[in-house]
């Protein structure tokens, strides 16, 4: 895997090979390992090492990118030439900006940048195949104790991302990530848990396995109950998977393109007043690099305050374009926030370090259950897709641990439901929240998010299991 010094040396060679006005190189590299198990046995077990350089060239308003994972001179020259050929044939784009220098990338003058905590942990990087097999062996033992079958993953990675440009910008980020996901299967029920962290010491495989097993056991012989509007208790993974579908729209480009559900809705009270949302890459429970696809430092941005949509995020060029647009007066603060994708990008930017604010009186999942006369407890959601882009209706299903709650207690497992639910109305109907935690699912990116108790959640069909 490339070091910062090796990357800097490669960038110097790229500069020499390029005739462009400006040149930028983004380096990504990882050493990744994943042990996969099913039917109480390891059935897939992989390790990979790869490094990539992605080269962007600029010629007076024209830009393009070419990527290679080979670092000999011939390969680098080929990538530079490809990038330049792609750029030269274009018509100049008046919105394309010169690349940022190191000073601009730090953000507003006088603002002290908030550096994220270190996200590299030697204990995570040093995990071996034998270590992962031991973790799996422990999970299988829990399955055997409960007479269940288990499937899941245990993985660890070390990754690096760096960006260099010909105006002197040079940023580098190094981190690790460990992840465990466990499914426990019984004859007609299942349970699931997943957790990840840059520091493997934050993961408790035995606890994840026990919780997943408990869900599988307690949801056995599920009853079929009629679809309809229910109070639901969404565990954090379920909450993040569904709310994640709205954050593509918190983007200046999405507003300019008129494809955002926030068009004409910024500065309005769209959600309940208990909803507060930030994007905060430096949050201690977050992961990822502190700079965006142009090297701009990611800034903490409040997206929603007391249910009011405050603002969206911007890449540099989007901010300038928005200031000159018909929307300038009705979208809140406009400035580059450090959320841009690598250029060229038609998608612009997106907040991907979401942190939900906590409730004034946080309630744990057990307290939410105790306060529910009739409702459904949801462990996990699955196959979520957008049905209506402006009302933000999404469809999907429950999975791996869905329970009927009556008279303040979990009564039994129920067959899984399909929902068709507007995120606008869902976030207007949140009756209680837990303290936010770092959560991960499969439908959306990782977030810091609470469990949520939501009234009138719209289940439209039940499936057969």
């Amino acid at each position: 895997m490339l070091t910062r010094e090796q990357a800097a040396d490669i960038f110097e060679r790229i500069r020499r090979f390029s005739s462009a006005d400006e040149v930028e190189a983004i380096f990504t590299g990882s050493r990744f390992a994943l042990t996969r198990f099913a039917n109480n046995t390891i059935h897939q077990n992989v390790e990979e090492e790869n490094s990539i350089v992605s080269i962007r060239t600029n010629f007076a308003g024209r830009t393009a990118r070419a990527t290679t994972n080979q670092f000999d001179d011939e390969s680098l020259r080929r990538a530079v030439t490809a990038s330049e050929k792609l750029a030269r044939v274009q018509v100049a784009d008046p919105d394309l900006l010169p690349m940022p220098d190191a000073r601009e990338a730090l953000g507003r003058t006088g603002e002290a940048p908030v550096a994220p905590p270190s996200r590299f942990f030697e204990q995570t990087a040093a995990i071996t195949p034998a270590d992962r097999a031991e973790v799996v062996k422990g999970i299988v033992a829990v399955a055997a104790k409960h007479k269940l079958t288990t499937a899941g993953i245990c993985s660890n990675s070390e990754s690096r991302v760096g960006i260099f440009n010909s105006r002197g910008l040079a940023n580098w980020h190094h981190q690790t990530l460990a992840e465990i996901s466990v499914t426990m299967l019984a004859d007609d029920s299942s349970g699931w848990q997943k957790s990840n962290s840059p520091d493997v010491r934050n993961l408790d495989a035995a606890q994840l396995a026990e919780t997943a097993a408990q869900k599988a056991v307690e949801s056995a012989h599920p009853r079929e109950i009629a679809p309809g509007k229910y109070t639901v208790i969404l565990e954090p993974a379920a909450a993040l998977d569904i709310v994640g579908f709205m954050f593509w729209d918190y983007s200046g480009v999405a507003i300019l393109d008129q494809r955002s559900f926030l068009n004409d809705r910024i500065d309005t009270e769209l959600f309940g007043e208990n909803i507060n949302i930030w994007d905060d890459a430096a949050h201690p429970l977050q992961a990822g690099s502190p700079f965006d696809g142009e090297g701009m430092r990611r800034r903490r941005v409040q997206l929603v305050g007391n249910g009011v949509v405050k603002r969206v995020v911007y890449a540099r060029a989007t901010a300038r374009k928005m200031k000159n647009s018909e929307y300038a007066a009705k979208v809140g603060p406009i400035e580059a926030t450090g959320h841009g994708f690598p250029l060229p990008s038609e998608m612009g930017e997106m907040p991907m370090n979401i942190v939900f604010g906590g409730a004034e009186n946080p309630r744990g999942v057990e307290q939410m259950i105790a306060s529910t006369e009739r409702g459904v407890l949801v462990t996990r959601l699955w196959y979520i897709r957008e049905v209506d882009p402006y009302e933000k209706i999404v469809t999907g299903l429950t999975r791996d641990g869905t329970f009927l709650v009556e008279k303040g207690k979990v009564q039994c497992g129920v067959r899984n439901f399909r929902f068709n639910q507007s995120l606008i109305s869902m976030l207007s109907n949140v009756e209680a929240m837990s303290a936010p935690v770092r959560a991960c699912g499969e439908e959306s990116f990782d977030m810091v998010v609470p469990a949520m108790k939501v009234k009138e959640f719209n289940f439209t069909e039940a499936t057969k299991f």
Partner: protein
Amino acid sequence: MKTAALLALDAASARGVTYADARAVSIRNRSLTTKNGRVGHASESESLGIGVRAIAEGAWGFAASADLSRAAVEAAAARAVEVARASARVKREDVRLAPEPAAVAEWTTPYKVDPFTTSVGQNLDLLLKVDAEMRAVGGVTLAETGMNFLCEESWFLSSEGSDIHQTKYSTGAGYTAYAFAGSEIQKRSYPNSFGGQWQNRGYELIEEMKLVQNARRLAEEAVALHHADQCPEGTATIILDGSQLGLQIHESIGHPIELDRVLGMEANFAGTSFLTLEKLGHLRYGSELVNVVADARQEHGPGLGTFAYDDEGVAAQSTPIITNGRFTGYLSSRETAHTIGAARSGGTLRAEGWNRLPMIRMTNVSILPGETPLSLEQLIAATDDGIYMETNKSWSIDDKRYNFQFGCEIAWEIKRGKRVRMLKNPSYSGITTEFWNSMDAICSRDEWALWGTPNCGKGQPQQVVGTGHGASPARFRKIRVGSAYS
């Protein structure tokens, strides 16, 4: 590249494996998009590397490296063996591979025009012409186009003597017109949504698609949807266009027949399948008119699932999946074939690239056209009361592949054999076997097309590969419609 594969095999074999294979792969990609009259994204990429699979102590290991130096390749092979020995610590039985004769072969996707010989300027000119056509229609608020070319050259060598060199080309293009007004965003896509149409062909696919000729019509439909009535909620006869039926096949036939899902190997992520083993040969999957094959052979057509050999060296085959409505076959691999009593793999193992483990993937899972001549217009004319739906807008199905819901971009109500009004926000839902058993008509060969799904995700780490789905429009009775907005 072949030398690297040989080095890897030697290094693995020296460490006492019972089986090993190596895939050295070179991938080249061009990706272009436009948005509202400007280039949105222009990029090319190349990726080279080698992946080594090994069985040691009866268990699998895999390691991959982008570094093709002798030392790095030998280290990757050694790592694959070490990983396999770690896997063996948690195993119940040894891996069993169905026998497969060693193959020595060369194969390249048949094409007329190598897409990489076309100029970027030529590609962008075409996309910008399409873009201009769409934006010439009042009410269009966003026009997006895209074009992609992929070339994957691979050398597969195994410890059993296989030596296969394949070069596969894929080409795709499409576009979408959006119209935002009031409190609605409507869109229309051509020739399909989510990336357009893709096949394993050269640039001739782009030239045949009539992209410019259809742009204005599609844009007008996007705007017209704002004045259309909402698709009603209830039970209806529906007719699906071929592209939507292709995705219906993908989700409710293609995934449930993957034998790794059936055996629980994907339970943690992609899910399992309702098609448990005892159903093979017995389940009434669909009506008598439903005949489905999984066919990777060139003679089936240039689908995204067409190849000569899969990624463990098994020759392309055609497997009957549903025969006159009865469930007759799974997608299998050398490791899973014995679980269904098969003497040989069905040849469906594929990987996203050099750095991913091959796994069971759909090839071209296609419904065969009706034998009686029947065009779409004749089918509509023969329908007294129904809804014709076109082009996918959303898709979702449960983790056993029973309950699905699809949304389409546009629909027309049919009364007494005629399209009488446009409907917006159409959707339909149901249970897989009930749905396929309700099919009472399918159009014939003239309406059949081999659609490409370039974005099928599966596995951990997730892999995205392309799959093919041949389909012609078909009719289904007593289907729940409109529930997405209920």
